[in-house]
């Protein structure tokens, strides 16, 4: 049993004596007898390091990582250069907290400022915050930005957003009394633009994904124009890697871009921690929630960084704050910054292009398997696509698993009643692995 406490029993006794107390219990004299726990917690005895490792090894042994994976659906296995985790594990970063004391936190503040800049460069927008919890909560915060900026409580949201994003938006909206109107997907799997025109009414704006959950590429420019036509603001939920090959949301008329930065160097880690990013036009900068680092100088003129625009935040504004967010995902944001710096424009474009090409090679191969059909054959996609099959999706998935391949996601797991599958490829999928998956599919559907 270790409690990581340096002081010995003797030292503790001396410290109690210095305070003038007889024993440890005297420290807790203010706690009424009736609420004291006068028995041990119902936990096992403390474990040594060796025993904790054993406990984890036994759990990890029951969590299998496949030889090859074709599963995305909101969490993507891209290559993480070796330098990324090593730098992110500098303990001056990870054992610090929010940089309240700027002079001794210049490293983290500059890293935040750089993250904000990188997100602006990636999205083509003017300002970004220091991160929020994940993509889904970034979208929820963006909805709050829309309703605050427009003073309207209705927002259009595309059915093409990830089911978890839609679920989180729905939860937040219920309690903030925001009316969400879902824009359906048309027969090509993209947001139904006439529906937007007919149902906008007095909406504050639209939230739509690029690419959408089914992998389809949306016509961002037209969505932005349709939103602006009713006087609304357009929020684009983007997959950062897609921006290696696609025009940026800011160039296509988005007022706000949000998304999940997981693909930027963060491990899958069973769903988190990931990092939500938010960028906006200059005009909406003061509506952004959460921490923002800004550049200034000290009295000698040295460039310095501080947390700024804090009059938006909960510790100053309390019930009038733009959001309640305090802790964010700073270390994950630094990780994403390191990743983007290493990849640079060419590396990100190459990873994006390879992901797209391999997904198309996979889709092409699958469409030749009798019994498998691309769901939206006429719609361009990035690195993910939905298929419908003549066999049960769980059966298909199970057959692949026997060969240590994690196939596309059986959609019924997160879209009740959907019998299709959602397949994904990235630069990590070697051609021989794709061919292996295709040959298993050939057997399954033979």
């Amino acid at each position: 049993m270790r409690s990581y406490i340096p002081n010995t029993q003797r030292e503790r006794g001396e410290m109690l004596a210095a305070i003038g107390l007889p024993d440890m219990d005297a420290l807790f004299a203010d706690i009424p007898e009736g609420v004291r726990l006068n028995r041990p917690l119902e936990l096992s005895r403390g474990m040594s390091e060796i025993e904790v490792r054993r406990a984890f090894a036994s759990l990890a042994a029951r969590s299998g990582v496949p030889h090859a994976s074709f599963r995305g659906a909101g969490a993507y296995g891209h290559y993480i250069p070796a330098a990324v985790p090593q730098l992110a594990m500098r303990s001056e970063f990870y054992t610090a907290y929010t940089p309240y004391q700027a002079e001794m936190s210049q490293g983290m503040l500059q890293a935040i400022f750089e993250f904000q800049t990188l997100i602006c460069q990636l999205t083509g927008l003017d300002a970004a915050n220091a991160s929020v919890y994940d993509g889904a909560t970034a979208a929820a915060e963006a909805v709050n930005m829309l309703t605050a900026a427009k003073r309207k409580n209705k927002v259009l949201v595309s059915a093409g957003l990830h089911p978890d994003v839609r679920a989180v938006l729905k939860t937040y909206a219920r309690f903030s009394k925001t009316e969400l109107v879902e824009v359906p997907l048309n027969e090509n799997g993209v947001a139904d633009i006439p529906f937007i025109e007919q149902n906008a009414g007095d909406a504050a704006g639209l939230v739509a994904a690029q690419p959408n959950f089914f992998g389809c590429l949306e016509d961002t420019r037209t969505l932005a124009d349709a939103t602006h036509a009713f006087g609304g603001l357009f929020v684009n939920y983007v997959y950062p890697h897609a921006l290696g090959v696609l025009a940026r949301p800011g160039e296509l008329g988005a007022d706000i871009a949000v998304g999940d930065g997981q693909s930027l160097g963060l491990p899958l880690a069973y769903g988190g921690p990931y990092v939500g990013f938010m960028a906006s036009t200059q005009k909406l900068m003061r509506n952004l929630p959460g921490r923002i680092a800004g550049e200034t100088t000290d009295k000698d003129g040295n460039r310095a960084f501080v947390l700024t625009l804090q009059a938006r935040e909960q510790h100053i504004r309390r019930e009038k704050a733009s959001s309640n967010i305090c802790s964010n995902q700073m270390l994950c944001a630094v990780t994403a910054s390191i990743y983007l710096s290493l990849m640079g424009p060419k590396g990100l474009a190459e990873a994006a292009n390879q992901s797209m090409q391999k997904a198309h090679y996979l889709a092409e191969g699958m469409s030749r398997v009798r019994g498998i059909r691309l769901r939206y054959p006429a719609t361009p996609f990035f690195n993910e696509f939905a298929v419908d099959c003549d066999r049960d999706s769980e059966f298909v998935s199970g057959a692949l698993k026997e060969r240590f391949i994690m196939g596309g996601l059986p959609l019924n797991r997160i879209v009740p009643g959907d019998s299709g599958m959602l397949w994904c490829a990235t630069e990590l999928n070697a051609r021989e692995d794709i061919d292996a998956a295709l040959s298993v599919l050939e057997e399954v559907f033979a």
Partner: protein
Amino acid sequence: MSRSSYPLIFERSRPGRTGCDLPPLDVPALEGLIPEGLVARVTLPLPEVAEVDVVRHYTNLSRRNFGVDNGFYPLGSCTMKYNPKLNEEVSALFDGLHPLADDDCAMGAIRLMAELERQLCAITGFDKFTLQPAAGAHGELTGLMLIRAYHDMRQDFNRNVMLVPDSAHGTNPASAVMAGFETRELVSAPDGGIDLEALRAACGPDTAGLMLTNPSTLGLFEKNIVEVAHIVHEAGGLLYYDGANLNAVMGVARPADMGFDVMHINLHKTFSTPHGGGGPGSGPVGVTAELIPYLPYPVVMMGGAGTASLDYDRPLSIGKVKGFYGNFAVMARAYAYILSLGAEGLREASQNAVLNANYVMNALRDVYDVPHERICMHECVLAPTKRMLDNGVHTTDIAKTLIDYGYHPPTIYFPLIVHEAIMIEPTESESRETLDGFIAAMREIARVALEEPGRLHASPATTPVGRPDEVQAARKPVVRFCE
């Protein structure tokens, strides 16, 4: 360290450099996959730097930062305890696990969540937890949504007021508003606790609940907690426990036994997961049995024989508050910590956290103002004396001078109800000699504040930059690099 600014990664950029390579494309390269209107028109303006450039850049940035591994970090209300290295290693065992992996492939991870939940229930006395919230404030929001859902289910639609003490964290009122409540502020009693008469007067048919941190942000245990709970419950409200200060009472008292109905825990405070420079955290929310139906889905269910499962069939659930299941790798670190300490170790941690705070307070009470002269819990709140203030020495000056002594300053100017507050939370991780060193520095600063106050305004002198001009930063915000 001498004063210096440090180049931005963008200022290191040289056209053509890159820090990564990928294998050649091994499938046919198709053209025209992207519709004309969506094709990237410009090369992304990201920095172009070599691997060694990036490695040196971030290594040197990290040297301009200060974490718990560098030294004493008594940031009140943040519990900056030591982050065990073991936990970093074992949590990484799940790094490759996809969140939508088949449940049988993810069984170890699901079981880990179920076991962590069981540990948290034992420590707090609650019946069930959700692990989904990503941070303390996110947990607050989730917990308050549960309270709203509870009242709604009882057709009690007019309970719109959340009571919040004036000593509360700023997140409390902000979360209440996001959850659809109005807030009503409770003025604290002179001893720093809840004023029972004010509470009775504030409670009524519109009371949805009371948010309370116990021990409070003054570091004081709410002696009247049983009576407070009784008053709120009598009025039909629920009691919310802000778990930011749980490090004071592990194994000593449990929030559920005090009468609370809902709480959040900051795994990154009490359970030693690293704060990451501002996150990621994790803010699990615990509830009594009557609130279980409203928990976010999926709910983790413990199974037999080392199994566990995710239950999505929750018709009364408030829905999801975050993608997937929460900050899993943070949960894994907390689980490792609780396994390491066990029942006795957690109690010992709280005892020593409280001992250390009292040791510091006791050693400084003759030279600083102590607004509440009582035994404190895991943190103590001090303030400059009137003579210091008359000399023009403010809390900021004391904090900035501490930096030159090699310490991270305490939380300052919070809680708001103490003028010029200095909130010190040493945690159990610190040795007596570390505390003695800090005490000596604080005493020396107190002496200088009276004898040569001007000296304190020049600090810090040992950092890469001096005090930044925050007014300029806010007036003309520059929040990104532009060429």
